[in-house]
């Protein structure tokens, strides 16, 4: 560690026993303050965020690229070894739900459909029914071809948004996966980094590697499309030129609908999408922000500070997870008449 130590409190409480290699994603449970963390050290870890305790650790076949909860008792993970695994936390049992032909990049669980959805670099999306016995013959519900490798997924209600390489965006209705409901192109001109749907189900936010976030809407009518916009963020100005950082992660506050973005500049910003204002910027984290997650009540924000290899294989700060308590002032939207704190 070459940098000056960051005061423990400013970034939030640092979790003990973090993964030993990069953190690919972290998620709070919908039912409690348990945090599931997937990492490049091939493990999937379960933490009790409040108690700051490691509750469980599961070994994958290779680097784990994504994870999600099923409910508080089980979760799923997507690995670079092409497998989709399921874990039962209480018993520590795990099994393979299915496989892809290439590393599985994203995984989501849809409560509405009762299915696990995975996106992979083999350019397919697969839906799995976790209630079946293990083995792809029993659990695979469908395979849906995508135009390119899947980079990010997000669900809200019955809508599924898939972001792939080549800036393709497919919007599906989970009830009818045979065809995407909409085939779109990202309105950002650079590689899509992350896609997240608004909690109110009207649209989704896209972030790119070029320090920009686009706010899009599902409704393709003229009226709705006028509301869409994009804004620059996670940039640094230097001698009149902008240094632009990829925006790796986004997370929506479950109550206020505002959202936080995390970039390779190590900052987390909170934005009010409706009033188009930045609400807050947290102090800088040791390294790139790899993942963000709000707890179910929006009172905690988990921040994964983990180098995301945007500059290749270089020495970097150790990977850490910070849990911060969220103050209302940081996330509550402010109508346009009031100035936002800088």
């Amino acid at each position, binding site marked *: 560690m*070459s*940098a000056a130590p960051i005061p423990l409190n400013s970034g939030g409480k640092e979790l003990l026993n973090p993964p030993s290699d*990069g953190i690919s994603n972290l998620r709070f449970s919908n039912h409690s303050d348990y945090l599931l963390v997937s990492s490049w050290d091939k493990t999937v870890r379960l933490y009790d965020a409040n108690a700051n305790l490691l509750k469980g650790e599961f070994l994958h076949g290779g680097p784990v690229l994504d994870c999600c909860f099923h409910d508080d008792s089980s979760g799923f993970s997507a690995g670079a*070894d092409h497998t989709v695994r399921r874990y039962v936390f209480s018993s520590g049992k795990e099994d393979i739900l299915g496989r892809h032909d290439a590393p599985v990049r994203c995984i989501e669980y849809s409560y509405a459909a009762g299915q696990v959805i995975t996106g992979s670099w083999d350019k397919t999306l697969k839906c799995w029914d976790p209630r079946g016995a293990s083995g792809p013959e029993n659990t695979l519900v469908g395979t849906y071809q995508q135009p390119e490798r899947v*980079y990010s997924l997000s669900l809200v209600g019955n809508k599924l948004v898939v972001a792939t390489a080549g800036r393709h965006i497919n919007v599906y209705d989970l009830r009818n996966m045979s065809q995407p409901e909409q085939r779109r192109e990202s309105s950002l001109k*650079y590689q899509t980094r992350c896609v997240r749907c608004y909690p109110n189900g009207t649209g989704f936010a896209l972030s790119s590697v070029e*320090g920009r976030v686009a706010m899009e809407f599902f409704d393709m009518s003229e009226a709705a499309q006028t509301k869409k916009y994009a804004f620059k963020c996670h940039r640094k100005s230097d001698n009149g030129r902008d*240094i632009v950082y990829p925006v790796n992660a986004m997370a929506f506050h479950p109550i206020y609908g505002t959202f936080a973005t995390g970039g390779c500049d190590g900052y987390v910003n909170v934005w009010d999408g409706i009033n188009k204002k930045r609400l807050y910027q947290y102090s800088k984290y040791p390294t790139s922000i790899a993942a963000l997650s709000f707890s179910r009540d929006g009172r905690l924000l988990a921040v994964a500070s983990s180098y*995301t290899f*945007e500059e290749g294989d270089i020495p970097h700060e150790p990977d850490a997870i910070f849990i911060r308590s969220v103050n209302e002032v940081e996330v509550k939207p402010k109508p346009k008449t009031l100035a936002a704190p800088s």
Partner: protein
Amino acid sequence: MNELHKDYLLRLERACGPLLQQLQVIWDEIGESLADREKIFKDLEHECVEAHQIKLDKASHLRAHLRQSIADAEAEVAAICSAMGERLVNNTQINQKDGSLKSEVSAIVPLLEEMRNRRAERIGQFLEVTEQIRKITNEIRPAGCNQSEITFDESELTTRKLEELHKELQSLQKEKSERLKMVMGQLKNLNSLCIVLGLEFEKMVAEVHPTLDEGEESKNISDDVVDRLASTIQRLREVKLQRMKKLQNLATSLLELWDLMDVPIEEQQLFQNITRNVAASEHELNEINILSVGFLKSAEVEVSRLENLKARKGKDIVLKKKFELEELRQKTHLLPEDGEINFAFEAVEAGALSYSLLMEQIDNQISLVKEDVLSRKDILEKVEKWLNACEEENWLEEYSKDENRYNAGRGAHLALKRAEKARAIVNKIPAMLQNLSDKVTMWERERRKVFTYDGVSLHLMFEKYNVHKMEKAQELERQKEQKKLHRLRVAEQEIRYGSKPSPSKCQNSRKGRGSIAPRKRLSLGGAQSAPPRPDDPQRKKLTPSAKKTSDRLFFSPGKRSAYCSPSPTKLRFNDSTPHQPELPRQPFSQLPHPNNVISAPPKMISGDNSASRTPILMPVHMQVGPTSYLTPVKHQLESINAPDQVIEYSFEESRLACYLAAQN
């Protein structure tokens, strides 16, 4: 009344008395004898009585005559009344009225007169009606009617009969008018037919009957004429149908010829009105002169002109067909058989063969080849598959020889995937070949000829392939032997000298030549390092963190361009060096990015960051298999400078590549 004859007798006595006295005097004078006097008085008496008797007879005659007249008159009146269907007037009334015959007569005569008049009138009416009936009947069916029948019975003059006759007349009139209408209709038909056929209406009509051309009233509408009219119309209709058929035949011929000889649109339009009607029904052809002799003739002329043209263009058409035949042959990998056709051309020139015959022959050949195509299709498809598999086999061989294929790099995972697939295919080749060979044998047996593929017998091709494979296998055996020997030698050396020759030296000596070296099969990890090319600004050597020594530079030229991304795909936006302004936004191209800012946060810097470095991405695709990802296969890359192949990778993909490389 009785007084009259008494008066008469008195007057007579008075008149005759004096006469008689005179007579007595005279007699006395004469001295007539009494006998003579009595005789003269007897004669006188006799004469008187006779004179009275004559008067009496006369009166009696008159009485009889009158009676007769009355009776006659009465009878006549009765007859008339009965004939006219009227009730008899009561004569007895008259009788009783006056009592004397003369009065009766005077009564009955006017009555008779009246009845006679009425009768005459009635007869007149009848006459009129029957005359009209006769006239119309005459018009309608003159031949068959018997004129004498159109009379009436004079004893039947009742109004009822008259009405009957009137009705008959009406019906006849109706019939007449209907017939007239029909005739008019027929005439119209005839007219339209004449128009279509280009005939003169007047002449046709006159043929039937001259009066038909005149005004309505004077037309002859007898059965005979109507029949003739109908038959004329039928005849003309037949002519129309005939000509229509002919025209449509000509139209189809025209269309065929146009199609065959690519006649230009302008010429086609001249005869558009023919071809337009090629499928018309009888009723649709009603334009002026469309079926006239002249029009048909012009169509015939055009068709024959085109036929002549066709004959002249015969050669071209035959050539075209020949070309078609060739193409078909080629598609099914049959060799073209030029000789026959050329010979045929000479024959035509010499006049021994006509072009149409030749065309037929070629058409036959074409259909034969088409049949052949069908039968060969299945086998040909399999042959294609086999050829593709052979190609993949060859590629795989080349690929296996390449040293650098295990190096993680751009497009590497795609090559890996291809190699996997290729291996699977190669395994299937023997079975495929066997199956194919069997099919070919069966086909050949059925048709009793050799299945050729572009002139070469398929069986021969299979043979060659098998032989080649055997030779390769033998070669491999030989090489294995050699390696074994070499290893033994090395071991000997070690025993003798105590050390192995350094691997890097021996590897480097073979580097770049792509020969098969046994060590390549092992994970290469840190054992090898290819010398970087320092002059290439884009391909800078990475300085990894201290624990990672493997490097990721690869230069062997790739054979397949699809697998690698040439330009640095890492997006780096720190444009501290001024020569890189923001590029115009091209959605799918990557921004080539310049170098790290040295003033980046200190955490990022490692030892020699003064060198500008542009990271190069090395995505690695892992083999399928549960644990196989742990032995990554490195693969070839194309020269990174190829500018038009841009594949983007995400940070995770490149990180995975590094990760896997680091595993070794």
